[in-house]
């Protein structure tokens, strides 16, 4: 009796929401796709100490997306292209200013992405109805339709394949850039490919998590994994697992408590991070 009660409870709380509702299944599939490709990109990002560029790309894409939305409506290819262009423009100018003036990268990057972000919000507000703004900022994973789901799955698959192909030079370049350049390898090509993958993944993650949260699923699981594991392979695998756990648990919590899904997923991920911090700082020392 008790046994069957526990089983029943488990099913109701952990499985039924996904079994019964199509939107929950789609949401879960979308988050799995995003987790699998964003988390490993995040690992490379932190090893290259480029989290600022991630910030610039994720915030910087907003005006492009907003403009594309204003012109083409909720049409994914246009949103992606707009976002990618705006993100790369912000990254390019920030980098340029850091090279040519006395400003350091962090100062230059944060100024540019805040300008882009403000511009994006103004453009969005030109459109009637502020619900759209909230969705773009925080995402609405529960409203993922099959077109966006296919887009996310494709982005994730293509990113993972490309990542596997350029894995070795990417890692070598992170560890010892001069070594790679002394072998006359096209390091700019690899860097550019990596940036493109990041923009693609951030735009894909928007649909579900929103501009403000997209970077979270890329960074937090990667940072946590880096904290816990010492080998690169383990860090990659752990980052994916952590992102998947956060996605699943976050969706469930948001379903049961009626919290917004994007922030809930990031918060679960943050909870795992803080727990890991506690483990590392208290137990290990």
């Amino acid at each position: 009796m008790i046994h069957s009660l526990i089983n029943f409870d488990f099913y109701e709380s952990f499985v039924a929401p996904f079994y019964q509702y199509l939107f929950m299944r789609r949401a879960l599939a979308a988050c799995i796709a995003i987790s699998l490709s964003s988390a490993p990109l995040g690992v490379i990002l932190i090893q290259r100490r480029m989290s600022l560029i991630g910030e610039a790309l994720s915030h910087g894409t907003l005006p492009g997306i907003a403009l594309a939305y204003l012109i083409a409506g909720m049409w994914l290819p246009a949103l992606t292209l707009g976002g990618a262009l705006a993100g790369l423009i912000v990254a390019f100018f920030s980098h340029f200013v850091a090279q040519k003036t006395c400003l350091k990268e962090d100062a230059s990057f944060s100024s540019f992405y805040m300008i882009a972000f403000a511009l994006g919000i103004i453009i969005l507000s030109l459109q009637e109805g502020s619900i759209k703004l909230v969705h773009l900022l925080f995402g609405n994973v529960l409203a993922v339709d099959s077109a966006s789901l296919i887009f996310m799955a494709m982005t994730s698959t293509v990113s993972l394949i490309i990542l596997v192909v350029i894995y070795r030079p990417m890692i070598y370049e992170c560890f010892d850039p001069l070594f790679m350049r002394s072998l006359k390898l096209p390091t700019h090509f690899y860097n550019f490919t990596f940036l493109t993958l990041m923009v693609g993944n951030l735009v894909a993650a928007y649909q579900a998590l929103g501009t403000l949260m997209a970077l979270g699923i890329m960074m937090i699981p990667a940072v946590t994994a880096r904290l816990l594991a010492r080998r690169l392979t383990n860090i990659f695998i752990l980052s994916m697992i952590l992102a998947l756990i956060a996605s699943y648990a976050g969706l469930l919590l948001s379903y049961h408590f009626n919290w917004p899904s994007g922030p809930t997923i990031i918060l679960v991920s943050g909870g795992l991070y803080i727990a890991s911090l506690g483990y590392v700082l208290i137990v290990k020392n």
Partner: protein
Amino acid sequence: MILFSQLSHLYQKKIALEDINLRIEAHTLTAIVGPNGAGKSTFLKIIAGLIKPSQGHFSYQHPFTLAYLPQQSGLDKTFPLSVKDVVAMGLWPQIGLRKGMNHAQYLSLEQAIETVGLKNVENHSLDSLSGGQFQRVLFARLMLQDADVLLLDEPFAAVDEATTQDLLSLLQHWHQQGKTILAVMHNLSLVRHFFPQTVVLAKNLVAYGPSDEILTTDNLLRAHGIMGAS
């Protein structure tokens, strides 16, 4: 043979190297010395193709493969790689993007790790190594690269005495095999003992030739004088 003619380089609008005319023969073992900011690293980087000189030419008689050893301080020693991973980087020209190591390559990897005396820590991660052990890792990688020209930027900075001795004898061994070696050095007594040729730099070329003739108090004072004046 590597030839510099009227080569100058500006870095952030400041002169790093000025009017260098120099000819370095193949198969020589050469030390590059000079005060801080004398352009020693820049000089190596120009040969390595990492920097394009602002003026003048740098040329060579025969095409060669080169291996570059960066300053240890420029590398992230907490990077989550193992000793074996880093040494295996030296196989890049042979295995490229995706190929795995074949048996012969694996044996040469093991051999290189053995030669630098890191057999017992080959699976350890980088953050557990001492400065000396870290430099041994980089030397094992150089060994696998098996290049004609070796460019070493301060190979013995932050390295213990025993490691310095071991790695110096490796350098001499490679020199005897016919490799051309250029190393930025600080310790002048090591230079006098182990490097047949020396270049003294102070943005300009102060002197070049056999170490025992070149490393005079006069030349060294001149090098410091030039740097002090600018």
